[in-house]
């Protein structure tokens, strides 16, 4: 079953680019990463999905329904916006209670649990909070009603590493309990840890949608060669070599193809050292970018 279905979604803001003909599905209980640089259209996609803005064409549905025609489906959605703004004069607890009051269930226990985990002071006024603490309010606010679908837009910006880790543990727990998670990010290491599938978006278009396992198992190798002598700039210019950087007697590149061909090249050099690793997602991703440019 698909929790999110996006079909040929297009949205433009006047002159500036929005998103163009985006299609993908997020399955039940999946953790889906939506990756792209700032301004690629991640927030636009999410806001259209949630019914905050209207698509120019195409459709976006959650649980098979559109958020605009059926606002009640939002009771099963928890949303963390990329920038968190709240009613300044409220205290944290008042805001969370206000938020909870929309869901017709008692969320007090969950609020306290989440505040404990995220180390959030409920008594403070929201306008006294730092950016990171406001983000925590957003996280608690998005999770307090135990939603079936959690949508997170750049969730970790502003959180310190300890909080990021706790937050991810929290998401894993929610996922194990049955929640589907859809989140956008430009930080790829975040995605790598927990996503089942990822979609890459660039300049308003989906450029790649792949299973995490496939991405990881793909034939991409990260190669670093340290030779005794100076390496010619073009020495490794061959098919399958990407992101080539040559610096004196050291060469770095990502390789995708028949490993033998590149190994032959390497053994022809007098070597000090050689490293062959699985690249992390960031490097594969950079490779996608490089290809497009």
């Amino acid at each position, binding site marked *: 079953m698909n929790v999110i279905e996006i079909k040929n979604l297009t949205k433009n803001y006047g002159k500036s680019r929005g998103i163009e003909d985006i299609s993908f599905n997020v399955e039940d209980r999946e953790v889906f990463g939506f990756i792209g640089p700032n301004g690629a259209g991640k927030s636009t996609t999410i*806001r259209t999905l*949630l*019914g*905050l*803005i*209207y698509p120019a064409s195409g459709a976006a549905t959650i649980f098979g329904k559109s958020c605009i025609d059926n*606002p*009640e*489906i*939002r*009771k099963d*959605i928890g*949303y963390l*916006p990329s*920038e968190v*703004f*709240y*009613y*300044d*004069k409220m205290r944290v607890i008042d805001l969370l209670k*206000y*938020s909870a*009051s*929309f*869901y017709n269930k008692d969320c007090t226990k969950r609020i306290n649990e989440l505040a404990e985990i995220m180390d959030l002071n409920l008594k403070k006024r929201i306008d006294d909070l730092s950016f990171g603490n406001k983000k925590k309010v957003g996280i608690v*606010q998005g999770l307090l009603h135990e939603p079936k679908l959690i949508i997170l837009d750049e969730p970790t910006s502003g959180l310190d590493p300890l909080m990021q880790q706790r937050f991810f543990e929290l998401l894993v727990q929610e996922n194990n309990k049955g929640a589907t998670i859809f989140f956008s990010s430009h930080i790829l290491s975040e995605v790598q840890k927990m996503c089942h599938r990822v979609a890459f978006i660039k300049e308003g278009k989906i450029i790649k949608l792949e299973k995490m396992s496939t991405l990881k198992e793909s034939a991409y190798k990260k190669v670093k060669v340290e030779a005794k002598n100076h390496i010619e700039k073009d020495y490794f210019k061959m098919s399958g070599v990407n992101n080539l950087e040559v610096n004196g007697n050291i060469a770095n590149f990502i390789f995708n193809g028949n490993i033998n061909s590149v190994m032959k090249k390497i053994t022809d050099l007098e070597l000090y050292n050689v490293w062959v690793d699985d690249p992390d997602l960031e490097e594969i991703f950079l490779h996608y970018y490089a290809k497009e440019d």
Partner: protein
Amino acid sequence: MIIFLREMKANRKSLVIWSLSVIMMVFLGMVKFKSYQSAGQSMNNLLGDMPRSLKAILGFSVFDVSKASGFYAMFFLYLQLMTTIHAVLLGAGIIAKEERDKTTEFLMTKPVSRNVIITSKLVAAIVNVVIINIVSLISSLAIVSAYSNGERVSGDITKLMVGMLIAQLIFLSIGAGIAAISKNSKTSGAFGAAILIGALFVDKIIDVNKSLENLKYLSPLKYFDAEALLVGNGFEPVFIIISIVIIAALTYLTYSCYNRRDLSI
């Protein structure tokens, strides 16, 4: 209901301040009346020597300002102006505030439709406007009768307050309509206030130059002003109909525009 209560709470402080201002205005107005009265004959001579247009602008032209009811009727315009400014700013603010304060993504992702949100907000705004009107009514009845030397004023004041309520509702719907149509949440209040000042300008032009009488349809302040209600024909059906049409049309626009447009985030 949740949003209604939230809005009532959010507007509580401003409602108290506006109510106190209304009471102060009525009180200071009548204190001034007292000083006019004690100035006696010299005041009447001064007014008699004033050019008609100046009297018109100051609002002295029609009423017998030596009587409490006449003096109150003269400064009723300013009371009306104050309460309609409150109404237009409230109407614009209550609709635009989520976008202005960037809380759109919080509220609009809750399981409520935009229609429910607008209805809750408009009902809260109407309750606020009615409270201001009741405060004006009670403070006027109490303060004016204290200065009236036995003159009966309650009938006139009640009539004026009913007229003022209609004007308040018109400007509330103008404010809300502008905020719903406009994509710029910061300017809708100022734009509403500008329309109000325009209406006041038209109102004064008519007072100065009676030949421009037909412009009165352009100024909601004129529909039920003191002159019409107390010495004219009272509540004229044509103005009641125009008022209802304006309020209904703007309310319809508020809903349809707010529902159809992209929220600015």
